[in-house]
């Protein structure tokens, strides 16, 4: 299996994905956008300090952050787009490329590796019919290999959007994928799930 690193870099979602279709056009001109921006600005001494929460908010509604969003955030916070680009690319958990509705990250670090994480990953790729980092044609899945997710006691760990699936085995993958397909979003995924702490 190739280990190429896809530009859709590994990362958890800081916010639960919500109905992203409702956000067409400028994000900070929507009711929700304005509310979030004001809340963030009131919390910090400088506008610049609100950058990470605002990028997180954008990702939570769109699933990823594209250059136009960076320009919007920059304008809202009196920063240069270049600076926002710098910050957004520094943090790997901001997706700079589109991902599927279910963003599946399979941990392959040592504990998970010893518990057949590579097979789990292959199984996810086979079930979703994608290559690593690729988004499935129906826009449902992006599967990606992750570094340690910090739940080594429950290997193999798989993160779907902001939820953890623990003790995943290669055989259990088809059922997980089937449930995810039926679910409105990652929150309804089966398995013994623990709340992810974003």
């Amino acid at each position, binding site marked *: 299996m190739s280990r190429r690193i896809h530009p859709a870099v590994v990362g958890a979602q800081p916010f639960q994905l919500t109905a992203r279709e409702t956000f067409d056009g400028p994000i900070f001109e929507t009711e929700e956008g304005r509310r979030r921006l004001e809340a963030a600005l009131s919390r910090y001494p400088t506008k610049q300090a609100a950058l990470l929460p605002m990028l997180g908010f954008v990702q939570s509604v769109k699933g990823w952050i594209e*250059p136009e969003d*960076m*320009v919007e955030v920059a304008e809202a916070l009196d*920063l*240069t*787009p*270049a*600076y926002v*680009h*710098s910050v957004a*690319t*520094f943090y790997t958990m901001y997706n700079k490329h589109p991902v599927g509705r279910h963003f599946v990250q399979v941990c392959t670090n040592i504990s998970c590796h010893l518990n057949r994480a590579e097979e789990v990953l292959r199984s996810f790729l086979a079930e979703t019919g994608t290559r690593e980092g690729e988004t499935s044609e129906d826009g449902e899945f992006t599967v990606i290999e992750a570094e340690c997710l910090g739940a080594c006691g429950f290997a193999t760990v798989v993160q779907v959007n902001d939820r953890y699936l623990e003790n995943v085995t290669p055989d259990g993958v088809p059922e997980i994928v089937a449930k995810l397909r039926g679910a409105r979003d990652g929150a309804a995924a089966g398995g013994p799930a623990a709340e992810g702490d974003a």
Partner: protein
Amino acid sequence: MAENGARADVRLTIDGVEVTVPSGTRVIEAAERVGVVVPRYCYHPGIPTRPAQCRMCLVEVEGRPKLEPSCTLQATDDMVVNTASDAARTARQAVIEFLLVNHPLDCPICDAAGQCMLQDYAYVTNQLESRVDEPKRIMGRDRISDDILYFADRCVICTRCVRFMRDVAEDDSLIVAQRGDKAYIDTFPGRELDNPFQGNIVDVCPVGALVHEDFVFKTRAWDMDSAASVCPGCPTGCNVTIDTKENQIVRVKPRHNAAVNSWWMCDYGRRHLVMTNRGVRADVPLVRDGEQLRPVDWATALDWVAGRIDALGSPGGSAVVSPDASNENLFYVERLLGRLGITGAAFIVPQGETAALPTVPTLKLRADRAANPAGAELFGGRRVDGLRNGASAGGLVVLDDELKGADEDFGGSADFFLYLGTRLAGAARNADAVLPIATFAEMDGTFTNFEGRVQRFHQALRPPGLARPGWMVLSRVLARLGDGEAVNDVRGAFERMAAEAPAFAGLTWDGIGLKGAAAAGSGAEAAGVAASAEADA
């Protein structure tokens, strides 16, 4: 900084040499006073921020458990610093080894080779083979602006360029993207740098990562000749170094002068200077022979011109001088005009957009697009908006003005039309004599900047054909008329000017040095600009 804000001196020992420096001085700068240049990447004396991130300038301080970055470490009394101890050297070697993990080692095709701080320091570590057998990560190159290329693989992420743009130019449009071994310098996707001072990021780059496109692959560093000069783009007079190869200007870099341009110069100046010597040049003396201008040798031309002037006496007339002419040229022209009874040479200064570097108040691209309008004024010139056409009898002398907007018969009614020029302008074909002179880059001389600072420039190029410096030519014409002696080097010209022109009284060629001195009664003199007392802080 000493208590209660006083700037006391501190005494410390660096590599066994005692040195006294003002309190607050950083060790990296104190070391330079004893001739020790601590290796550095991220530190640049012209950039205010010091992130101490490159870890190259680590030094050992006796009594301290860890190595300290000398760029941020303040010198204190009785500090004993060792810049080349085993620990310091080992640390430096480790930094170099890490930098070389992904460096392409493409020195044979890199424009910085020979002037590269990575090459220099890597050479010093004497580690001839890499211990890394992993494949290198490859990133390629990018365009940062319309004329600056970025070779990402060569970059050491010292962030000098980013901090120049952010902290000196106050234009936060160049950033570090990604992180770790994937980090690279970038603008916002789809946008390019657009700042009138952005060219300086190439100068601060310690390696070959940022290169001007008009310089890329043009020459090896060791094949260039260099001359200290002054930018003629505007009356600020930024101090520059002109690099030439095979008698062509290939690169212009700012030369440090704390009182004028600090470490920087504008892009307009850079481009303007590179273009200085383009175009078809006047390279042989011409004298009128009926309808024709006949090429002659210098002796013939000078005798002929002197003879004509001698015969004319003092008929009055008019003159046009270039505000790009050197002080010496303007001085000699004024002498010649005096001889002809002409007063108040006209000069025309092209105008352009201004630009300022926010954190360096002395450095501005000024609206006047000429090197020496202040000098032209000192020698009695009158600033005019445009060329005055029409008939005027008597003498007509033109010094290197290209006579834009001149009528076809410009100067036709003058009794004697003398044209001294670097190029044969259209209307110059009406002249009775054309004497080819050198551009500023082809001779030694001085300019007077906007605040009256007299600055030396040195010959970078050979003049084409028979062209010679204006002061050399004019001193010979005047010598034939019994006024002074023919001078062969700029010292002679400058000394005569200093002796006879009140504005230059007291100045000497050596006294001006490479950093300039104030003309008498100028704004620069009032501001206390001294010839030699300038600190390079």
